[in-house]
């Protein structure tokens, strides 16, 4: 066992962990951040996606100990003021969730896509979310939600080089 300190959604959290513990387990079981879902455990479904130091990663493929001293953000942390983010409101408007199990991951991923690329094409959207699945098949509604936020955003497209497309 060793102690790690991780900033999760703006709060420094310290816990004792085992070296072989996954970041997914650390977040869900030790910190009870239940928006991070455990489903396939093998990096295919993407429902355990979190932001680690500003980048989307699948937390079932990251060791908890690797997050020591680093910053994690989950869907709970995408806004600071307790209000819903534009993409969350659009998910509600367009019914872009059915069972809701995958929704936190999709919200996080589309929120981040719109941050780096305010006007994504369908190809950009498909590429950016190619690591996520929705077994209810709400892909069309998610696309509509993204399109709505994109249309409502006045920001011009960022220069191509600055896009974190990969």
């Amino acid at each position, binding site marked *: 066992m060793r102690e790690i300190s991780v900033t999760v959604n703006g709060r420094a959290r310290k816990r004792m962990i*085992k*070296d*072989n*513990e*996954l970041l997914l*387990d650390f977040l869900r*079981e030790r910190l009870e951040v239940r928006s991070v879902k*455990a489903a396939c*455990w*093998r*990096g*295919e479904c*993407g429902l355990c*996606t979190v932001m680690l130091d500003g*980048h*989307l*990663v*699948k937390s*079932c*493929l*990251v*060791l908890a*100990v*690797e997050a020591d001293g680093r910053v994690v953000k989950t869907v709970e942390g995408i806004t600071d003021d307790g209000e819903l983010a534009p993409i969350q409101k659009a998910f509600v408007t367009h019914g872009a969730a059915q069972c809701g199990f995958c929704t936190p991951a999709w919200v996080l991923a589309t929120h981040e896509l719109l941050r780096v690329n305010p006007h994504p094409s369908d190809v950009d959207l498909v*590429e*950016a979310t*190619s*690591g*996520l699945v929705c077994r209810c098949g709400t892909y069309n509604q998610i696309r509509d939600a993204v399109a709505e936020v994109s249309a409502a955003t006045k920001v011009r497209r960022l220069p191509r*080089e600055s896009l*974190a*497309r*990969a």
Partner: protein
Amino acid sequence: MSFGSPYTTLPDFEYHRPTSLEEALGMLRQYGDEAKLMGGGVGLIAFMKERLMSPTHVIDLKEVKEFKLLNNAPGKGLTIGAAVTLSELLEGGMLRKEYTVLHEALAKVADPMIRRRATLVGNLCEAIPWVDSPPALIALDATVAIAGPDGRRNVPVSGFIRGPVDIDLGPSEIVTAIDIPQAKGAQSAFEKFTGGSEFSLASVAVMMSNDGRNRRARVVYGSVNSTPVRSADVEETIGDGITPRSIRKAADLASEKVECVDDVLATAAYRRHLLKVITTKVLKRMIQ
């Protein structure tokens, strides 16, 4: 925790995070067979969950300073350190112009979240027959830089991969980087067919170099055999130029001469058909 299923837990191990190559080599010497090296961890964590590997020591190479090196100095070729991720290589399209074949191969590996973690060196060292980076690296004439207790050595990628999950790396050695020679004025491209599988059923990497006097083609097929296969027949056919006529001949030769195997993903006969399709596709794109 984790429903107690073996597939959701990892075997017990001690985690190490060396910051220098010497420290990493020292740990490898100390723990020997009980240790596994970790780059992005994407492969290792998956293999450990399935208990295909149960190391008692995991040595994470991400904080080794030398391994973060990504050098793309003009005129000097490209050096990709062992901790450089696929995302870092794709960012800003830095490979797109000179090393197009590698850019195209990496851009379709898994998904953006996995590419954020996975390293090119890790991808290569897994030596899974169906992954896309080896054919692209061989087309670019890349070499693997290795450090061990007896010093450093370099091996061409083509010789480094000896078979499925079999690489030319001793138990006390570490791959430090991949070096790719300058490819100025060259034209290259990559094509693959996955048919919805998570791996390629067949892939092709083409590199046409032209130093003003000599034109030379390198054509490497991936996923059709246990290791990537170069085709001298196809290289000779398009060596003098890619034309509609040479494309037809190259596609036929690829299908006839490149040795394909049956495996869990596809039959050899289907792969021979795919070779014709992807050879035509990649070469047509190169003259458009």
